[in-house]
């Protein structure tokens, strides 16, 4: 009798721990290979031919079509520079410069990837269409209400995310990604 109770305990612990940790490992963000610069995180080259089992399990669930080394690298951010979630109740400025790339795009979207409805029907910026400072730096204002300059409207959501995709960049093919300078995400104010 006591043996059976202990056996049941072993099975219960095993099933809970095994499925629980597996679920944690494959839901949400990928666990292997993230590189963070400020609020930005990227997983360069993790889905190549020698991808690890965790990345494969993540791919199977997410159906992601990741950028390869010949294409570029995608950085995402869900917080500002102070660590607060990006929310439509606040106004943010994404400013500074990006690592060298032939082209980049910045997109604001819900955390599940859907875009946020807005009257301006603008969901992102492309590097060639930005108004820039004389030194090449840029500032993009993220807000619900119309803002002067480069304005990226956001919808009425509690938490959203930004994706900065750098196309044809030396970062995608190699090392030293942690040393690059990414744009800052500065919170201007909330209401």
């Amino acid at each position, binding site marked *: 009798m*006591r043996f059976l109770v*202990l056996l049941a*305990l*072993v*099975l*219960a*612990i*095993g*099933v*809970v*721990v*095994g*499925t629980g*940790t*597996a679920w944690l*490992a*494959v839901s949400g963000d990928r666990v292997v290979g993230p590189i963070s610069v400020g609020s930005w995180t990227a997983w360069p080259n993790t*889905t*190549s*031919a020698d*991808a690890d089992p*965790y990345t*494969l*399990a993540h*791919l*199977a*669930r*997410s*159906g*992601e*079509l*990741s*950028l*390869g*080394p*010949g*294409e*570029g690298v*995608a950085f995402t951010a869900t917080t500002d520079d102070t660590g607060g979630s990006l929310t439509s109740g606040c106004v943010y400025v994404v400013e500074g410069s990006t690592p060298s790339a*032939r*082209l980049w*795009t910045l*997109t604001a*979207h*819900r955390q*599940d*990837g*859907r*875009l*946020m*409805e807005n009257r301006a029907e603008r969901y*992102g910026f*492309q590097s*060639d*269409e930005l108004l820039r400072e004389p030194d090449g730096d840029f500032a993009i204002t993220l807000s619900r209400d119309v803002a002067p300059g480069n304005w990226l409207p956001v*919808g009425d959501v509690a938490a959203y995310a930004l*994706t900065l*995709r750098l*196309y*044809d960049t030396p970062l995608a093919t190699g090392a030293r990604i942690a040393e690059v300078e990414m744009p800052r995400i500065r919170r201007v104010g909330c209401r």
Partner: protein
Amino acid sequence: MIRSLAIALLGGLMLGGIIHITIIFFLPSFAADDGWARISAATSDSRFRLLPAPTAGEARFPDLDPQLAHAACRFDLSEQPVRITADLLADFWSIAVFDRRGRNIFSINDRSTEGRFLDLIVITPVQMAMVRREPPDDLDQAIVVERRIAEGFVLARALAADPTTRADIENALTAATCEQGL
């Protein structure tokens, strides 16, 4: 009593480790909604089809860039290699080859092809050995991707941020060919 509880705990953790590893390794084989399944639902063999960019309502392919247009084509190398040709006049475009599991196994952009024309062959090593015996005349101008894979898909991305030229770029993407054989 305490000792047998400790053994049960240890045994439970070890069993948990085995279950964890088993789930991680076998999950890709049972995934019903992976990249391949989504691509298969949106495309057909031997033709490039546009993929829907994320919208405010839906994100079937949540990590596609809404500023770009995307088209994909499935292939199966078990009988013959596949040859992809395209004429893309976008400021930026790229092509990636994915395997059945969604791994990005080869990628290239317009700068490395020196021009707007793309001629790409995805072939297995066995088929390549056969082709080398009697190479077709135009083989030397093509980019040859030799991989030991069976099923997979090709994804083409092209910059289409300007709404006035988006339709042209989408047409060029769907006009790209993706045919079995050389």
